[in-house]
């Protein structure tokens, strides 16, 4: 597979959220607003690309018997770095994402890509896979956050859309709303890709 194809793979065909259903914990928990979804997506992308690169560079050094602890240490290191730097230089975003930054460590998407892709491929391809999967994750989180914010608070990215008269469906920004929105979006996504496959 070419580098560009690897990159595109994560965007649509194997989208981490809509197709692989990976990393559901942050997906469901932080997508109450479009901004939080986007920020979480970008933070995850940064960790994913860095972890993929290091895992790929060390792939000949790490014996398969201790690969899982090694990957976790590498991932946790990058997450802690992001946590410290965000705290120092982007305090508002840090406050808003709060608890979910440390939780990137246990996002199975990152461990999954390290295990199934980065540990078997060259650094350049591992980076392009990380970018593709990360951006695929980020746009899906942003979409989910936008839908929930629009229905649950009547705004997108904090900007009011429907005005005062709109009575928001508060359930959409509560936990059940996350499942409802995700289920419907996954349904639409699969319906669209099936239709495309049938036409092609």
């Amino acid at each position, binding site marked *: 597979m070419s580098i560009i194809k690897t990159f595109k793979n994560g965007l649509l065909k194997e989208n981490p959220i809509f197709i692989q259903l990976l990393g559901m914990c942050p997906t469901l928990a932080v997508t*109450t*607003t479009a901004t*939080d979804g986007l920020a979480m997506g970008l933070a995850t992308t940064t960790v994913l690309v860095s972890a993929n690169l290091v895992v790929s560079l*060390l792939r000949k*050094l*790490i*014996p398969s*018997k*201790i690969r899982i*602890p*090694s990957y976790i*240490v*590498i991932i*946790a*290191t990058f997450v*802690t*770095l992001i946590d*410290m*730097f965000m*705290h*120092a*230089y982007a*305090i508002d975003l840090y*406050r808003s994402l*709060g*608890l979910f930054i440390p939780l990137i460590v246990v996002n199975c998407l990152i461990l999954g890509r390290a295990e199934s892709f980065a540990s078997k491929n060259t650094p350049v391809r591992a980076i392009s896979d990380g970018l593709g999967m990360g951006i695929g994750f980020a746009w899906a989180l942003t979409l989910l956050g936008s839908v929930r914010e629009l229905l*649950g*608070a009547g705004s997108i990215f904090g900007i009011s859309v429907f005005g005062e008269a709109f009575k*928001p469906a*508060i359930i959409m*920004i*509560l936990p059940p709303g996350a499942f409802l929105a995700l289920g419907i979006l996954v349904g639409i996504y699969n319906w669209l890709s099936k239709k495309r496959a049938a036409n092609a």
Partner: protein
Amino acid sequence: MREIVKLGLILLLITSAAAVVLGLSNAATIGTIEAVEAKASEVARKEVLPEAENFKTLEEEKLNEILNGNEKVLEVYAGYKGENIVGYAIKTATPGYGGNVEVITGISTEGKITGIKVVKHQETPGLGANATSAEFQNQYKDMNTSKEITVVKTQPSNENEIQALTGATITSDAVTNGVNIARELFNNKLSK
């Protein structure tokens, strides 16, 4: 046996490298983090007690007496204008829906609430998190410290009543409890 040693050494190598990287970046960021946090607190104190020009924490003896008696009180600052104390900024932590809600309450020496600010919380976005809105927080402004503040669900008709946030009574209670603790602290310990 030899394999286990080898595996252990490789893991040791990886974790040591991680520790070095983390140690260095911790050293690089800790100063900035402390400065940013201190500045954020200073800004919040100014917001709730605009009259004060600078803030000093209470004398250790008095502060310890207050803090030991009540674990819900986190910080007590006296606000100065020139040499004179014009009021106090009191930070409290009270349990809300998703953990402790930290509130800074500003009280002037005359016994009026000059402002409150929710500085830290894990309340539900869209519901309890609205406690950080100016609309909610401004309700407390200019209330008298002599009377307990209560939460009502409808438009307040009496003195010292706060209208609860829609769908977030627990959060509204938590904020109000914090303000009440600050209020009592002022009445019993600070105003004398």
